[in-house]
């Protein structure tokens, strides 16, 4: 008799030096991070272990961010770390310093963790090669945003009890979305079926090579899904080029009551924020506490970031089977 285990039992633990993306992670490593995050999510803020006591975390954001940076900051502080926010807009980067020189400079300050957001794909990886600190990817260009995907996965797991076997639709501007890329990688690794929905200009057919189903019509793609994940559309950058207008986008790709009715009755609505009400999502759905878990995604964001910091600090070796 062979006994089959869910994919999450393979390589349970976490031994990476950096968290650069979902791509390098094994299902067991993702499951480990989610389990720890689930534990942190249940704690009162004062109860968290001071796993990062005496450590220094530098938040290095080359792109503007309020929510992600705050979330990393709060997560690190709950674990007892000292957090420094580097305001890149006023730093030497604006004076022409290269990324590598910035890395050298920061390295000399001996931080223990560096959280980086950068506008170009692969830039965080490049930094990680030059630094002694643990590097966490807070979003690199259109490449990956691993902690957002982990927060989304934890939110799904809390409501559905599992990820394996679910059907998830990710809708909107897939092409420019690091959130979509990290999510589709994570969800597939954990056994979910992923559908991508968007207009051809924002969803190239080449994504089929990543093992997902590509839909260009919302009504077909949403049918019987367990999760509807909406993405932010940068209307101001796209109107007239990649899409004709915001209102046309909402007409064909916006999430309203009629469209949501095509999904399973207990389907969850998610959005990584910030939302454009009336462009990709109708206001009443965003605020519907029965189906929308958008606020919970933010809350889980802090928990998974705590889990990531802790995992990097302790580097628990993987085991082959999860302890009962």
């Amino acid at each position, binding site marked *: 008799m062979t006994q089959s285990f869910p994919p999450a039992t393979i390589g349970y633990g976490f031994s990476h030096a950096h968290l650069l993306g979902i791509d390098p992670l094994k299902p067991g490593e993702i499951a480990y991070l989610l389990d720890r995050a689930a534990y942190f999510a249940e704690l009162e803020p004062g109860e968290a272990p001071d796993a990062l006591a005496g450590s220094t975390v530098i938040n290095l954001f080359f792109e503007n961010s309020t929510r992600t940076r705050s979330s990393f900051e709060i997560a690190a502080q709950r674990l007892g770390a000292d957090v420094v926010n580097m305001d890149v807009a006023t730093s030497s980067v604006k004076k022409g310093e*290269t990324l590598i020189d910035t890395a050298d400079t920061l390295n000399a300050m001996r931080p223990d963790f560096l959280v980086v957001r950068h506008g*170009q794909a692969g830039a965080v990886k490049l930094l990680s090669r030059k630094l002694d600190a643990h590097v966490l990817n807070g979003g690199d260009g259109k490449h990956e945003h691993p902690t957002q995907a982990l927060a989304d996965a934890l939110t799904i797991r809390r409501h559905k009890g599992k990820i394996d076997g679910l059907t998830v639709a990710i809708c909107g501007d897939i092409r420019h979305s690091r959130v979509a890329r990290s999510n589709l990688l994570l969800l597939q690794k954990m056994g979910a079926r992923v559908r991508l929905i968007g207009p051809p200009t924002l969803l190239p057919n*080449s994504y089929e090579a*990543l093992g997902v189903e590509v839909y260009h019509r919302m009504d077909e793609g949403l049918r019987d899904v367990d999760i509807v994940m909406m993405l932010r559309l940068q209307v101001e950058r796209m109107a007239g080029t990649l899409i004709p207008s915001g209102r046309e986008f909402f007409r064909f790709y916006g999430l309203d009551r009629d469209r949501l009715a095509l999904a399973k009755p207990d389907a969850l609505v998610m959005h990584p924020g910030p939302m454009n009400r009336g462009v990709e999502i109708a206001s009443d759905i965003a605020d519907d506490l029965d189906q929308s878990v958008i606020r919970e995604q933010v809350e889980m964001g802090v928990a998974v970031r705590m889990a990531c910091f802790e995992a990097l600090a302790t580097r628990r070796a993987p085991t082959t089977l999860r302890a009962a």
Partner: protein
Amino acid sequence: MSKRTLIRNVHLFDPANGHDGPGGVVLYGDRIVAVFGGDSAIAADADVVIDGQGATLLPGLIDSRVHLSEPGLEYRETVGETARLAARGGISTVIAQPSTAPAIDRPQAVYAVSHRSQGGKGARMQTLGALTVGCEGKELAELGLLAEAGALGFSNGTAPVGPLDTISRALNYARSTGLTVCLGQMDAVWGEPGVIGGELAARMGLGGIPALAEVMSIERDLRLVEMTGVQAHFDMVTSAEGVNAIRDAKARGLPITAGTGIAHATLTDIAIGDYRTHAKLHPPLRPDRDRLAVVQGLADGTLDTLVSDHRPIDTDHKRVPFEQAEPGMVGLETFFSLALSLEDRGVSKARLISALTSAPARVFALESGIRPNAPADLTLADLDRPRRLSEARLHSRCRNFNYEGIPARGVVLKTYVGGKLVFERA
């Protein structure tokens, strides 16, 4: 007073002149004056006798697509250094692209290239002229004056030629010079450079250039060639569809020639891996089916020429995020060995050597070949001696290299340019 030099005990290999066997040559001044088979006693009246010890003597290699860093970026490589690196790689003639800064769009700039390489310490440095001023695709460059100054042909560098009316006027006018125009550069306005659209681009979160970009440019340019009757050379065909378009055009009887780069015949986009900027090239590396089509194109003669597409880039412009990195790789020193490796992939030795010698000579109307009265441009090489390619063994100042640790064969022993020994392996 010139000396007579005898090179004996070599294997002559020059398919265009029907040589494939033991023999030797006699050089006098800058010319070959005699070619003989076997090992006869012509030695008697030579001043200098060189024993080739059975190595292979080839017509000097011609690399018809090299990017100069001078003027503009001398810190990467001067013209003199390019000439010496080429000689080290067995290349006797370099044909440079005009896209320097400023571009080679005036006759003085053509003179400057040969002037800067003087000293006889390296390959013969030739250049193409810019088709449009500054390679910007707007105004016609002084094509007639460039030709008079010695430009071997025209190109717009890596930039597409510009709007249709500009390109058709430029080609129409270029016809009057009788020189070849290099065409088929894909439109850079499509997508982000450096990576081909498709699975890899989707994985890496990069826009990627659509695979169609190259073949659409080639097909457009083929129509313009048909319309204007200009002599055209599609020098960097790197996709399966591009090779097919060239094959069809040749079958239609269009008098065009074509070529490809060594990287696109030996590497795929796998080399880009995790944002390796050294493998960021222009045109971008492609999936294996394109590489196979390119090799097949070389094997069946659809692609006439093979080039190094040498482009030195310093670390500061490669050790940056992928999107910021400049495309290009160095190639002069390893070009010959990598070209020979294609023999194991189905391209005959005769085809390969033609692609490096007689084919580019024909395209750019250069004298070449092992025959009496041809220029004494010769490459002596041991085609079978194994070597391991390594960055540590490069003499280039720039190290944007993609073949670390790759086993290869073919070692250049001597390079002659105009009868002068410009490189000798120690």
